[in-house]
């Protein structure tokens, strides 16, 4: 079961702030502040305000610590506080990420990247690795963390981390796992997605006919996953049940989803099978919904493959219009949104939706929250490398 939530994203620093923004449509998107975007054709992003981060830069603007580390430590600490985790038992940590800690490479002065790398550059490069980010977050949580893993699951990393946590709880190798995803706003990532033609000019409009890409974001979210009896014995509050996980690979292309959504559908089916749930039990799908042409149509194709035969298939909505795409943090932030929806009964809509797209023929809950009282929700994530990860979350029965 899930007993603690922590989040730090452009919409807020606690689950309640995140939920309020998702339901009101308050977006965390604006002009990029972290670096000069003049060389790029797009200039919007979804950044966490610097004042939310503990002294991330010195007076000259140079980084004092990694931005991803700052985000991750804040969310991980908040999740443990929320769960009233006393540190009395063994705790595993699984950190999902796309870029690791890009702060150091992002701020390299001109010429530092030129080969052969200097010792300083090599050291800073090593600090960029996902394992270093995970270790820094673990260090901030000392001494409670035992085993620590870095899951490089790209844009599905949060769900991958949750799936690993579920596997460890079920296998008995852990009784409590703090799992989530982290990515800091990055010039490297901005440049990369820009060159791939994936960035929206002004706004992210998932599933809308006029969508033109994603808005790069950042953030961190962690969820404390505990074995049920262990959680109950320490008096923890059950917020939701993490009941299933499915991973697949498209085996198709390094960046583009399979156009038929076959891999995504397989991950969705695997997650439902793992949860012991049939498709007709799902009440809401928290979609990956990046706002790119290719992703959204492939995702709807996957939904049609799994739910299309139902008389009343579950609606699906994407929160990325207001959160931005937090990369490795995205599906962890969305998992927090899923837990909030399970507890409140109200699911967030797809904001910024303007026109139906025949290629996205699905109820995407445009622009207005819906009271669905969901019992079972699905959280979807697809990533570079064709890596798909889906988790199933359920309302805890009193």
């Amino acid at each position, binding site marked *: 079961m899930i007993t603690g939530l922590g989040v730090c994203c452009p919409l807020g620093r606690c689950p309640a702030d995140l939920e309020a923004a998702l339901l009101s449509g308050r977006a965390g998107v604006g002009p990029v502040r972290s670096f000069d975007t003049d060389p790029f054709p797009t200039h919007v992003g979804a950044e966490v305000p610097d004042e939310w981060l503990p002294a991330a830069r010195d007076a000259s603007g140079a980084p004092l610590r990694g931005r991803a580390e700052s985000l991750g430590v804040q969310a991980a600490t908040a999740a443990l506080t929320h769960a009233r985790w006393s540190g009395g038992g063994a705790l595993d940590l699984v950190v999902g990420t796309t870029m690791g800690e890009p702060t150091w490479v992002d701020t390299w002065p001109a010429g530092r990247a030129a080969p052969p790398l200097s010792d300083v550059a090599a050291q800073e490069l090593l600090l960029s690795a996902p394992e270093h980010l995970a270790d820094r977050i673990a260090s901030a949580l000392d001494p409670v963390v035992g085993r620590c893993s870095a899951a490089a699951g790209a844009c*599905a990393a949060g769900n991958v981390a949750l799936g690993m946590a579920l596997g460890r709880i079920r296998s008995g190798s852990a009784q409590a796992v703090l799992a989530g995803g982290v990515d800091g706003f990055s010039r490297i990532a901005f440049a990369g997605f820009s060159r791939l033609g994936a960035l929206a000019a002004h706004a992210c409009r998932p599933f809308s006919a006029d969508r033109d890409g994603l808005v790069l974001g950042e953030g961190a979210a962690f969820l404390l996953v505990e074995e049920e009896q262990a959680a109950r014995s320490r008096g923890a509050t059950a917020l939701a049940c993490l009941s299933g996980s499915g991973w697949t690979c498209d085996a198709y292309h390094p960046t583009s989803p399979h156009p038929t959504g076959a891999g995504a559908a397989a991950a969705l089916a695997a997650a439902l099978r793992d949860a012991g749930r049939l498709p007709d039990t799902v009440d809401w799908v928290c979609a990956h919904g990046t706002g790119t042409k290719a992703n959204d149509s492939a995702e709807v194709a996957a939904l049609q493959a799994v739910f299309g035969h139902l008389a009343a298939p579950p609606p699906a909505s994407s929160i990325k219009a207001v959160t931005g795409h937090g990369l490795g943090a995205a599906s962890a932030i969305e998992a927090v949104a899923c837990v909030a929806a399970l507890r409140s009964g109200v699911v967030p809509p797809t904001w910024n939706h303007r026109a139906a797209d025949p290629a996205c023929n699905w109820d995407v809950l445009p622009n207005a929250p819906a009271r669905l009282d969901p019992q079972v929700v699905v959280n979807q994530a697809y990533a570079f490398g064709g890596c798909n990860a889906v988790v199933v979350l359920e309302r805890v029965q009193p």
Partner: protein
Amino acid sequence: MHRFADVHVTGAGTVGLDPDGHPVADDELAAAITVRGARPLARAARLALAASLRALADEQRLPDEPDPRAAVVLGTRGASLLPLAEFAHVADAQGPTRVFPMSFPNTVASVHAGYLCTLLRRSGPVLTLCGPGAGLEALLEAALIVATGAADDVLAVETDEAVPGLVDGVGEGAAAVRLGRGAGWAPGAGGEASPRHPPLLRVRSIATGGGPDELRLGPDGPGAAPTLQGGLSDVARLAAPGRLTVTGRLGVRGSASVLLEPGPPGVDAQPRRRPSVR
């Protein structure tokens, strides 16, 4: 608690791992990669592909369609670091709008696993782990995937190219261990040996801990010193004809001990084709 007794090593392969720290010769690497489409791969991914192909040496040919019951778990420390440095260098020298778009994916570690899945026709679970013990963690996660039934055939792969300061004193290289289900080999469960995936070793037990002090060693004690950081290469080398206990760091923090022993009685536990070991 999952039982790992049904999980078998059905193939293994290595490339590189020169104890003197020499890099893998380009012609050796090219010769080891017998599939098309490897050109966009970063060097670490090419090393992983070469080791994987050696682990799959018993296959007559790869399937035409991706196999949803076949999976990949990749462990690495720095597979994306030099691609990241290269991306940063081009962006710096030529401008961020002049970077070759498809160089960006290689800065993301999961892409290397995705390439392996694509080229080896595997569409089951895929996972990428980073850290000094990522190789051993990949083996553990792969065993878990088999034990839970999420896939029947899993490649656990560890790879790293020579990044300055990353793999001190160890040559670059990759190790791949193929794990499969052993149900077809168990007495009374059909009995006939699968002609496709003969087991080399059986996973007897896996012990994990939060740190070295918590580690419960297998009955045979620690195995050979890991040549690559994670210790997966020990398994891939199949150095011991009998039991083999691989002990080492796990992921970013933690430790594990994996005890392997020869396959079930009555089955030839020796590989039909000895994996290529340099």
